[in-house]
């Protein structure tokens, strides 16, 4: 008879094979989760040429381990505990640190449980080529699996599992290198448990397992002096306790436990939001929370309670009678805390700095403008830290003065480039070498007893003011991914490389499937000078019925970038191309961006076309979308196109086409303005570079706007709106759209008040149309630039536009406030924006060209991608602005060497001790501070300063003249723009 055995595992093994745990869901339900595990005995140890584990896989660990460490002469492998990865990730990532590492599954899972960002870094580390990391699945190997004892905490269980795996490796190595009779036992490499957990170390020692702390291990390692700097501050504590921590007076209130915070937030007694530091006053910050219209003000160190820009914090709001107005004084950290000493700033007596700070705070408390009070509160806990690496300079005065060139370890201050961040205290042995360099510093922790956060040095970027260092620091500061494209990504490019051409027309070739042949159309592109990634081209022609056919042709990027490929993932992660003054960080490899996709003239290119039939009044009669093949007839700059259009002698087809387009664009614009679109302004300047090689800025000039700029813009808007309608119709749940929410009315209160008091003008913010109309009326006949200034200030009051997934928000919030369009998307620049690529894919699917990839049917996926794209977009804008500022600084420096730079400026803010001014010709904002007392009228936005014979009153919107200088900060080597008032009074004497 056939024997039948049941392979089902008996329930008696349940305690070993089943892992049960509870999970609390977001909705407050408790779920019991059951995981089965199958123990096996063929999980490989990963050591090369191991006789016991005959493994097919590639073993990454060298058979004798690492021989160079003096403590382990027979060679060793490192088996790090979880805490090593949680606190010393920079060390583990350093290219100088490359011992063979056994990474346990237990550790991997614990890291994931504790911190997702660290887990992602750890995963990248495992994959990195230069590292020797072997992941050992100890929970699945029968000898190393552990089950939880009664009353054992998860932490203890994991520690036990780690020790068990260490012990197993030890016996496994003995087993795989048996002593041969008559010979001495071959040298046995050790498996060393690396942990900073003292208790775990003690237990391991008791069990006879070799173990070592991180610091001890690194001290014996080659390159130890460089690696020791990478150790995070928390690791060093157990080894060399400094002045007794407990005795030290706590400077900050303690945080509440996380669970309490969440309960408080849930019950509405606490508020959660992002912490925003005030860039004018380092003793003040604010948190925008949903419960209040105005952000919650946090005044003073104790109330900010160790929050750092970008952290998600929980704040408690005080009673309304204790609410304050934000300070109207400029408080500079460097000026106030000049004498603070890095070494002993823990000794918090009533020293000068504290007194100085208190004075500043008291001064503020004394006078309270009756208006403009806002919710005031304090930080009671941190929901999530958003610490990253910051670009800093070493403060040279914080170096030990006795021996400035000493290589011993010393504590110094690092001043972040961003004004929003506090100084960071770090210990380093390379302090003298780091002076005058830009360095990258990570914050490790911020104790209650320490006034400043503690951090560690990550790496040096290069000399201050050198272009490479400045550029890299800028990219790092704004978190722009700038590494060259990897091989996997480049493999996604067409194999023909730059030899790729549109194949000859045939009905069978897949590239020509469902494509319209538009090669004979008179198509041209209009772009800024020097533009290499041309992603749009236009055409227009009259139809026999009196209507006009106009077409916008967009580079067909989705033909080359397919969903779910490495190139697609990279593009999604980069989100956008970043334009710096002298560098472009591409979203897609250059072969696509500047060649194969770019709609260059006189070559055939694949395009995605939107073709309208417009009435002579520019009303849409019909619109269709099609994939096409085009051959652009010419690539104009805005200027060339303008000249060509205006030249009455020319009447060729191309010129006529531009004129026709221009005619339509004017009507489209008029229609848009009538619908209530805003004409916004932002300070835009152009950096004139000497030549492309030297990239030394010669001068700054204001960007010029021509009619042809607006021509292209109008048609792009039209295309975007038409596409948005189409994809929203087809994919109502997942369409990729863009919206601009109407700003809350309170945002305009201040501006309305200033305009009313200073100029007697009113701003109607009830709708975008009303705002546009009232902005048009804000004209000062004597001062043409005044209108632009108001527009800039109004723009600052608005929210920023964002991408969103149509299924995620209510239908009535789709609208674009600035454009006064009920629906909008980005479709026209797929080479440099990832959202456009998604829109292309959705449009292609909605016209039946290709099926939509499954990921674009998933709301959560689209939301996730767009969240990244939104963030990258914001960062990219800030990066390019910062890049321009840097070059403006360089240009100013060059100019001021030749003589004083005098510029006209508008006063945009008044402070108790200074003025905020805007230099429109340079597009920069600056601060003018007065050392002497001046009269300040907060309600009327004026200051009155004494001059020789009579007092001079200056108010917001006044035109003044300032001297602009670039001054190098002596301490931080940071070049910064300094402004002095020179007319009507000279502020240097005040």
């Amino acid at each position, binding site marked *: 008879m056939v024997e039948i055995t049941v392979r089902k595992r008996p*329930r*008696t*093994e*349940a*305690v*070993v094979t*089943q892992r*049960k*745990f*509870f*999970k*609390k869901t977001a909705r*407050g*339900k*408790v779920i*019991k989760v*059951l995981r089965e595990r199958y123990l096996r005995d063929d999980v490989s140890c990963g050591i090369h040429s191991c006789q016991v584990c005959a493994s097919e896989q590639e073993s990454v660990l060298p058979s004798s381990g690492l021989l160079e460490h003096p403590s382990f002469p027979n060679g060793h492998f490192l088996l790090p505990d979880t805490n090593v990865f949680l606190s010393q990730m920079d060390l583990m990532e350093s290219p100088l640190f490359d011992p063979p590492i056994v990474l346990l599954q237990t550790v991997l899972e614990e890291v994931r449980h504790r911190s997702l960002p660290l887990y992602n870094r750890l995963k990248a580390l495992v994959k990195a080529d230069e590292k020797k990391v072997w992941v050992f699945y100890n929970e699945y190997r*029968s*000898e190393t699996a552990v*089950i*939880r*004892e*009664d009353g054992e*905490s*998860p932490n203890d*269980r994991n520690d036990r599992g780690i020790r068990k795996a260490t012990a197993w490796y030890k016996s496994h190595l003995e087993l795989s290198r048996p002593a041969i009779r008559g010979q001495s036992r071959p040298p046995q490499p050790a498996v060393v448990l690396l942990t900073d957990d003292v208790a775990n170390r003690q237990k391991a020692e008791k069990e006879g397992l070799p173990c070592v702390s991180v610091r001890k291990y690194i001290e014996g390692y080659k390159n130890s002096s460089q690696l020791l700097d990478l150790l995070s501050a928390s690791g060093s504590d157990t080894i060399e306790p400094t002045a007794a921590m407990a005795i030290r007076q706590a400077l900050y*209130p*303690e945080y*509440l*436990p996380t*669970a*309490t*915070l*969440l*309960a*408080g937030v*849930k*019950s509405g*007694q*606490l508020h959660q939001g992002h912490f925003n530091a005030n860039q004018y006053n380092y003793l003040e910050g604010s948190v925008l929370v949903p419960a209040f219209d105005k952000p919650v003000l946090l005044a003073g160190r*104790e*109330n900010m309670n160790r929050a750092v820009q970008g952290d998600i914090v929980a704040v*408690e709001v*005080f*009673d309304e009678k*204790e609410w304050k107005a934000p300070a109207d004084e400029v408080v500079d950290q460097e000026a106030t805390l000049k004498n603070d000493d890095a070494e002993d700033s823990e000794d918090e007596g009533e020293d000068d700095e504290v007194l100085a700070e208190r004075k500043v705070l008291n001064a503020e408390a004394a006078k309270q403008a009756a208006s403009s009070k806002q919710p005031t509160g*304090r930080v009671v806990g941190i929901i999530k830290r958003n610490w990253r690496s910051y670009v800093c300079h070493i403060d040279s005065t914080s170096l030990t003065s006795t021996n400035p060139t000493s290589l011993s370890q010393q504590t110094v201050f690092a001043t972040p480039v961003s004004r929003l961040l506090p100084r960071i205290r770090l210990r380093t042995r390379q302090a003298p070498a780091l002076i005058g360099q830009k360095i990258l510093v990570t914050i490790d922790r911020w104790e209650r007893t320490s006034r400043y956060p503690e951090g560690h040095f990550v790496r040096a970027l290069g000399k201050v003011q050198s272009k490479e260092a400045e550029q890299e620091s800028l990219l790092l500061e704004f978190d722009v991914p700038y590494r060259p494209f990897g091989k996997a990504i480049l493999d996604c490019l067409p194999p023909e490389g730059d030899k790729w051409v549109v194949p000859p027309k045939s009905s069978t070739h897949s590239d020509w499937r469902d494509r319209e042949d538009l090669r004979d159309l008179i198509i041209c592109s209009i772009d800024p000078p020097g533009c290499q990634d041309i992603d749009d081209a236009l055409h227009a022609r009259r139809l026999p019925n009196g209507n006009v056919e106009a077409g916008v042709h967009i580079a067909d990027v989705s033909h080359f970038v397919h969903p779910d490929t490495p190139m697609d993932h990279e593009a999604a992660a980069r989100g956008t191309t970043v334009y710096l003054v002298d560098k472009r960080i591409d979203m897609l490899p250059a072969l696509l961006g500047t060649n194969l996709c770019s709609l260059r003239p006189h070559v055939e290119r694949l395009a995605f076309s939107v073709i309208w039939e417009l009435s002579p009044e520019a009303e849409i009669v019909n619109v269709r979308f099609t994939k096409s093949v085009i051959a652009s007839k010419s690539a104009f700059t805005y200027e060339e196109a303008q000249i060509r259009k205006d030249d009455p002698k020319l009447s060729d087809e191309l010129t006529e086409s531009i004129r026709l387009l221009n005619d339509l664009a004017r009507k489209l614009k008029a229609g848009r303005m009538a619908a209530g679109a805003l004409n916004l302004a932002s300070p835009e300047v152009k950096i004139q570079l000497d030549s492309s090689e030297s990239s030394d800025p010669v001068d700054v000039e204001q960007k010029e706007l021509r009619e042809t700029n607006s021509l292209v813009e109008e048609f792009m808007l039209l295309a975007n709106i038409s596409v948005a309608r189409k994809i929203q119709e087809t994919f109502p749940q997942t369409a990729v759209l863009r919206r601009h929410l109407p700003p809350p009315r309170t945002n305009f209160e201040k501006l309305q008040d200033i305009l009313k008091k200073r100029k007697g003008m009113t701003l109607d913010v009830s709708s975008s149309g009303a705002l546009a109309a009232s902005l048009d009326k804000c004209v000062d006949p004597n001062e043409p630039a005044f209108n632009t200034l108001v527009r800039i200030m109004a723009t600052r009051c608005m929210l920023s536009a964002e991408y969103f997934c149509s299924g995620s928000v209510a239908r009535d919030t789709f609208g674009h406030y600035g454009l006064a369009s009920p629906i909008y998307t980005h479709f026209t620049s797929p080479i440099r924006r990832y959202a456009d690529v998604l829109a292309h894919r959705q449009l292609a699917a909605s016209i039946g060209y290709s099926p939509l990839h499954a990921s674009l049917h998933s709301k959560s996926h689209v939301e996730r991608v767009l969240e990244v794209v939104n963030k990258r977009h914001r960062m990219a804008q800030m990066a390019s602005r910062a890049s321009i500022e840097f070059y403006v600084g360089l240009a100013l420096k060059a100019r001021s060497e030749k003589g004083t730079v005098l510029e006209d400026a508008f006063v945009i803010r008044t402070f108790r001790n200074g003025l905020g001014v805007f230099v429109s010709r340079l597009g920069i904002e600056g601060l003018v501070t007065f050392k002497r007392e001046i009269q300040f009228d907060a309600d009327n936005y004026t200051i009155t300063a004494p001059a020789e014979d009579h007092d001079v009153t200056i108010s917001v919107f006044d035109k003044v003249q300032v001297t602009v200088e670039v001054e190098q900060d002596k301490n931080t080597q940071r070049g910064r723009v300094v402004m002095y008032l020179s007319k009507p009074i000279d502020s240097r004497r005040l």
Partner: protein
Amino acid sequence: MAAVSLSKSERAYIQSSLKAHPPLRADGRGLLDFRTVLLETGVAPLANGSARLNIGKMAREGGGGTEVVAAVKLEVEDVETGDGVDGGRVVCSVTCSPAAYSHLSSNALDELQHDLSVILQQTIAHPTLHPTLHPKNLTIIPRKKAWLLNLDAVVLADAGNVVDALFMAARAALWDAKVPRTRAVQYRAPETLKSPRNDAPGAMDVDEGTSGFDTRDMARTAADFELPDYWDEGEVLDGRDKWPICVTLNLLPSVHLLDATLAEEASIPLRLHLMFSFAPSAPPILQSMRLLGPAELELKDLKDSIAVGERYAKELFTALESKLREEDNRRNIKARDRFALMR
């Protein structure tokens, strides 16, 4: 309960053999003997407590007997929205497998399920009739969150005496049930806002009480709870000793017998279900009682029956209790030891 069609002569034959001296039963048992009872707890790993119980399994054939599976599953309920009840609630339901009652129509099956559910619900989970049985640790946050305890039983096969089996299985599952430990978290506003620096940890704190046992200190402001240890099965359900068991007296005037088979049930005119609860160091409590069948019973006889019923129930209870403790032991300590030995 389950009507098996039996001819008059068959019925008379069974009745007369039961009344004979010595009484004769088809399987050779004495009148007061139970068939073999098999019990296993923890059969449903995803439940919070579970048990499988079989009465009368044929040792050789590996089948037969009355088989019941009971499982306890806990669910969080919001008291404020009106879904839950402050202090938690217990809901029982019994499902009968159609395979066990292939002769019943689906309507009849529904009725049977309902009858059994009602007996179970009213005996162990009636909020007003039996408040003493209500477990005290079903509160998560007073007046906010509470556990809903679902006790679900499935009758997989019926070979007689299903009510006794049902109650034993229910008791075993409830004994096995563990309530996940929760910790209420709350936020209490500091009393003095004037001195923001003076907030020693006393001003706000997390309630450290493990669970609903100690509800005095729990502040009204507790808003939410957390699971302090997500690997822990939790603490045992309160009142595990008090859950009642049932013993069924099948009354054939002048004799009574226990653990009747289907054929016996069909031939006996009157059945008395007695549910007793034996709390430690307390007199036994008759929780509930049901009399089924067309025959009559004198009050005096009823009293006598209850008195003997209590004795039988006590025996059954003791046997079940020791088996439950053994099961506990088997599943935890022994299994771990075996795992340790294995390597």
